[in-house]
């Protein structure tokens, strides 16, 4: 089995990095290869990183509402590049309503403030890259 490769990053001016770091550490401890893109990414930059690194999954940490403007852009860029890389979004600001919106946009999984952090790794592993093509 090849090692799962996950790009983790923040979009726009959101600088609340701790959640991303915690999730990166959780994934690393579970044997997942994390490509940590850090903060202040544009959707374009994150798509480029995931292409260059051959990422299986893109993980976005969102602790500012900006993500609502950036995620559709990111998904559109993936579609345009004909990439089926599943996108997951996690963060404290994600309300139950946002969760539904994100899933409707084609985000593969959403981790809100209620998510038990021990479920994150199995849920990310369960994503099948080929079945989660963003609509």
């Amino acid at each position: 089995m090849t090692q799962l490769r996950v790009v983790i990053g923040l979009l726009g001016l959101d600088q609340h990095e701790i959640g991303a770091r915690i999730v990166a550490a959780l994934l690393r401890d579970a044997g997942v290869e994390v490509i940590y893109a850090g903060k202040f990414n544009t959707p374009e930059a994150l798509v480029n990183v995931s292409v260059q690194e051959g990422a299986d999954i893109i993980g976005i940490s969102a602790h500012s509402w900006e993500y609502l403007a950036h995620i559709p852009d990111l998904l559109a860029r993936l579609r345009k590049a004909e990439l089926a890389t599943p996108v997951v979004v996690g963060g404290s600001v994600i309300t139950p309503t946002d969760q539904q919106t994100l899933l409707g946009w084609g985000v593969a999984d959403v981790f809100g403030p209620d998510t038990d952090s021990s479920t994150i790794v199995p849920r990310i592993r369960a994503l099948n890259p080929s079945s989660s093509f963003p609509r």
Partner: protein
Amino acid sequence: MMCDEFGANDPRSLAVVIASHTSGRALTAQQPVNNVVRGAVQAMALVMAGVQAIEISAFDEAYRIPSAEAHLVGLRTQQILELETDVADTLDPLGGSFLIERMTDELERGIRELVAEIENRGDPGAQCDAGVFSRMFADAMIRSDRDLSSGRNKQVGVNVHRVAPEEDRLLREVVESRDCEWRYRIDRTTQYKRERPADVIDSALQALGIAASDRACNLMPPIIDAMARGVTVGEIADVLRASYGARFAGGPK
């Protein structure tokens, strides 16, 4: 420390002035009304500790840029402490309690040990560049998350005394409402940029670019000049990023 280590003479330099903000990390997305209570308890502790300035984190901070309503609750909490209790009238309401003093001593010892450890490692600036401090901070956060997931630390509404999401309605409307301020800002900035004389802006940015390419040059005058001509902070940052690279933008290198 100020006297012995830094040779301070002016008594004002020896005075401890503490401005404090209650912890945003203690606030939860679950049962947001509990955050009002957390703010009050923490603010009370700050008053008893004798700090000079307090700001209470807004109860909706877990979800949003704080609303005016939540800020007002924070302010009212302080006013209640000030006017409806006498706790602020006494210099040291805890009166040298053995327990508090002992905990303070322990904290002080811990701080001194850590400072010594950092100083032993050499130049703090170099350590900062190497990401030592941000790693220290992130490690503490990871530890605290693990203590929470394992149940070692308890947080009401998060890992104990939870309620079903559909029952968690109190103050929900406030914490989840959004004013989409950024859309208005984008429109306003776009409009503003359209109305400026392009050549004036271009020449100011160009001058800043030339100054930034000279590492010895003081950037303040060209920045002030650019601002006076109507250049935006974003445009200035673009020029500086182009010149210096965005090294501040990553995590630790």
